[in-house]
């Protein structure tokens, strides 16, 4: 019984570590693409600064959202796809 519980706990910990790594790996590029999309707004460094202000505010929220549940992960992935597509359209 206790062995089962220990195995359960180890599996859970492993899942969570993988989850946070995945959340970071997905959220960072999404925040980056959001910043680059905003940076493409005409105005030189102004766009970059605005992009950084918004992307850095989003990044921690995206990580938590991505880690919280499967639906969150899908939502962040979808947001990333939209950001990439928007970037392609702008450029």
């Amino acid at each position, binding site marked *: 019984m206790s062995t089962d519980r220990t195995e359960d706990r180890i599996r859970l910990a492993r899942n969570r570590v993988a989850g946070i790594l995945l959340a970071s790996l997905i959220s960072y590029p999404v925040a980056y693409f959001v910043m680059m999309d905003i940076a493409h707004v005409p105005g030189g460094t102004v766009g970059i600064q605005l992009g*950084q202000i918004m992307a850095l505010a989003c990044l921690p929220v995206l990580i*938590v959202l991505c880690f919280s549940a499967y639906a969150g992960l899908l939502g962040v992935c979808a947001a990333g796809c939209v950001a990439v597509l928007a970037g392609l359209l702008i450029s």
Partner: protein
Amino acid sequence: MRETLRTRMGWLHGWAGFVAGLLAVCIFMTGSLSVFDTEITRWMQPENQVPANAPLTDTALNAASSLIHDQQVRGASVFLTLPSVRSPTLDVLHYDGRQFVGTLFDPRTGTSIPARATMGGTFFFSFHYTLLEGITGTRIVNIIGVVLLVTIISGIVIHIRALVPDIVRVRLSAARLRGWLDAHLLVGVLVLPFTIMIIYTGVLVNAGLILPATPLTSLFTPEKVRTPPTSGMKAATVMPQPLPPLAPLLATARRDLQGRDAGFILFSPDHLSIYASDASGPFLTRDHADFSLPDGRLVGITTTSGSVAHTMQVMHGLHYARFAPLDLRWLYFVSGLCGTATIASGLVLFLMKRRSRSGHRIGFRVGESLTVSTLTGLPISILAFLWCNHLLPASMAGRDRLEIGCFLGAWILCTGHAGLQSSGLRMNGAWKTQLCLIALLGGGLPLLDILTCPRAVYGLPAIHAAIDGIGMLAAAVALYVRHRLESDGK
């Protein structure tokens, strides 16, 4: 085991908070001290007894000008910091690769002040954002900032449901775990807006290091070694022009920079630039007026406009707090200490929750010894740094390097002591000894100050009383925690 959003967020809050918290305590503690960096520098240079609001005379400006011209002829790149309420001296400074050093002038008479060489309060400032590791350190600090924001968001998710009842029924004297948790919640919630603001603006200050506006692949390519441009070498050989009287230029710059006071002046061989003071408002700008040399003719005014640029300037201004008057700076300091206390109590809680199940494991013991060396070792090394400043002879060569050596040496010794105690499962012993040392060094700080620099204490009583008082406060807190540890052990 059933996985819910709350348990998942609890795991994230605990582990992210613990891993980032060990460094975050150092960043927050030194950041809080940096609020008073200029005042700490004045405490560490007791020879400088110029009172605040001392009038700036033409004699002093001329003395500084002639020194600047001499140093420019020798090829040094110097700048002039003008007197302010916090730092009333006229400073001719240059960067020596580690810090800004130079000559301090009395703004009333123009005589140079033979102040001792010291790292001063700027040491805490540079430790706060670089961890003494340059760009790599700044990058680490930025990542820690983002992880802290993740920790805060997950903390809000797990505590939001019972937040109000937990705060209303503060049970500090209940069971140890409950007491620590309530203290963590109470202090954390009290300064939550400040903590979020200071972390977010701090990450934004060096946003380019974490979110560069270049292709992502550039993050993984090694940085190219910069070769000095040939034009720069040419510029170094250009004979610098003599400087015109600075007082009229300052008056012109003040008029053209919308009445803002001048903060510092940068000198080039053929022109000089007068920058608006950081203390002139919450917008931290680099607006400046350029004058040609040697005639002192106004060449141009550089100001930033636009709402986004102003937003960024406010973010920087809020983080640096250079515009803040004394009372607001105290509020920053106290809020910073509360933020430190929140992270510190979180670290202790993390260990307490796992002690019964994992206390025998080597990983736990390493974690606990690192926590001891952070929570008590860092204050000890800060106090050792201050003691070292007052005990080393004022005219000793390389005393600023020795101050850093003392700071790092004390910290390494504390870490070693905590590690040794944890290997013998005597962690209470490590806490108690190091808390005693804080009490001794902090409590002895006023005595040391009065014995070694009585004239400075008499001349600038407010600065000395405040810094000695902070030492006493650290001693009182250490003694109280030690007392609680002893009473819990009985």
